């Protein structure tokens, strides 16, 4: 049994948030540079070059790469041989978020859904816990912007809809989103589980580096076909009508009920931000 003080979780969340908001992931940057190299539309190429230049400025000046520093999504995998001491984990996470958003000059974007009154410190974070083996805690921080989150969808397909039905959902969600989620997008897809668990799978799919495919060949085939059809839409960077509408499609899969086929499509904008640390 290993004892971990939740103060360490607070420090970790603070570090990850400070880092995540000022830099897109390396795989995102590589994909944007590749898109800029191949894009045939001059307007989209201009927008892609602007995004690459922007990431350079953000890194150099430690400025948020996008002003939408998002709602703080925190994935915490807790090894079952860990004993926690100190304040409740959620309090530790929220303290880390509060400090990072204040000290980092990040925008506080969280409000009451009805009154729209801002909570003032970007809390509460959305925290997903998972119990794992071992004596470590893995913390992943995703600042999720809402231009893209707003374009996400859940579909309850029929079992017979199969892979083709899933691909149509993925492509349909990106087509309906059009220019609004800041394409080129990264598409996280959850296949199977229940109504709520497929959405979390979709979110977790976005943690995977751009350019990777699912280890299961039938799932990887869905990713590749959906990506091809999305780029055939020619929405392009910012919707200006170009070749690169998505940087990638990442699907995660889980067993489901004999009567159903839930599919969640979580859209991520061109500014993929995600940082992980193991305690």
């Amino acid at each position, binding site marked *: 049994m290993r004892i971990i003080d939740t103060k360490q979780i607070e420090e970790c969340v603070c570090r990850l948030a400070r880092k995540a908001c000022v830099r897109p992931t390396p795989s995102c940057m590589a994909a944007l540079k590749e898109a800029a190299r191949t894009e045939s539309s001059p307007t989209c190429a201009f927008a892609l070059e602007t995004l690459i230049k*922007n990431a350079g400025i953000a890194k150099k000046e430690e400025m948020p790469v996008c*002003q*939408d520093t998002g709602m703080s999504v925190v994935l915490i995998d807790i090894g079952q041989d860990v004993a926690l001491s100190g304040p409740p984990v959620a309090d530790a996470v929220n303290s880390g978020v509060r400090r990072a958003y204040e000290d980092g000059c990040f925008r506080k974007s969280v409000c009451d859904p009805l009154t729209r009154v801002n909570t003032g410190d970007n809390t509460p974070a959305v925290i997903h816990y998972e119990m794992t083996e071992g004596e470590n805690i893995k913390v992943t921080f995703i600042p999720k912007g809402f231009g893209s989150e707003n374009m996400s969808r859940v579909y309850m397909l029929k079992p017979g809809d199969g892979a083709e039905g899933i691909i149509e959902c993925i492509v349909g969600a990106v087509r309906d989103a059009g*220019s609004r989620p800041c394409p080129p997008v990264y598409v996280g897809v959850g296949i199977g589980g229940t109504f709520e668990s497929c959405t979390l799978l979709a979110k977790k799919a976005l943690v995977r580096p751009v350019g990777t495919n699912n280890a299961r060949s039938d799932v990887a085939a869905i990713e590749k076909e959906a990506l091809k059809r999305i780029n055939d839409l020619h929405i392009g960077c*910012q919707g200006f009508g170009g070749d690169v509408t998505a940087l990638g499609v990442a699907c995660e899969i889980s067993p489901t009920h004999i009567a159903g086929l839930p599919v969640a499509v979580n859209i991520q904008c061109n500014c993929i931000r995600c940082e992980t640390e193991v305690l």
Partner: protein
Amino acid sequence: MKIKRVTLPLDTQTAQTLRAGDIVLISGEVLTCRDCAHKRIFEYLNQGIELPFSIDGAAFFYAGPCPARPGKACGSCGPTTSARMDGFAPRLYDMGLSCVIGKGEVSKEVREAIARNKRVYFAAVGGAGALCGNAVVSCECVAFPDLLSEAVYKMELKDLPAVVAADAFGGDVYAASRDTK
């Protein structure tokens, strides 16, 4: 690629020299205005309360900035999704709003209001918050400070890169991608 320079305020004559797809660098004064500020503007208008700023001749920037670091005028400040303001935009263009800087497609009703009034809609690059924030040379809250990042800020821009997304003649940079749907 030829880049045009646009200086605000934008009169209708100059607006008519721009075409959908033109790449521009925008300088001059804008007012930031997004969801909550629009809601409040319409509450004021509907109740006959005088607004703390003029819509006639104004340029709106759909944006909510990050706080500025010491020594800077503004923090990161890129455009937000324009479509959320579609319900408000036609009436504002009819009241003399000269242009909007946002991102993404706008509705047919908005494009018609832009053409009817000989105005223009610019799309800045969504995701380029740091670069856009550095194009802000001064920033001052002029209304609704309780809305924090959603308040109305008067900003002086210097060379903000953007694309003419909807022009005074009904031209629309998103038409091609929309037609594939």
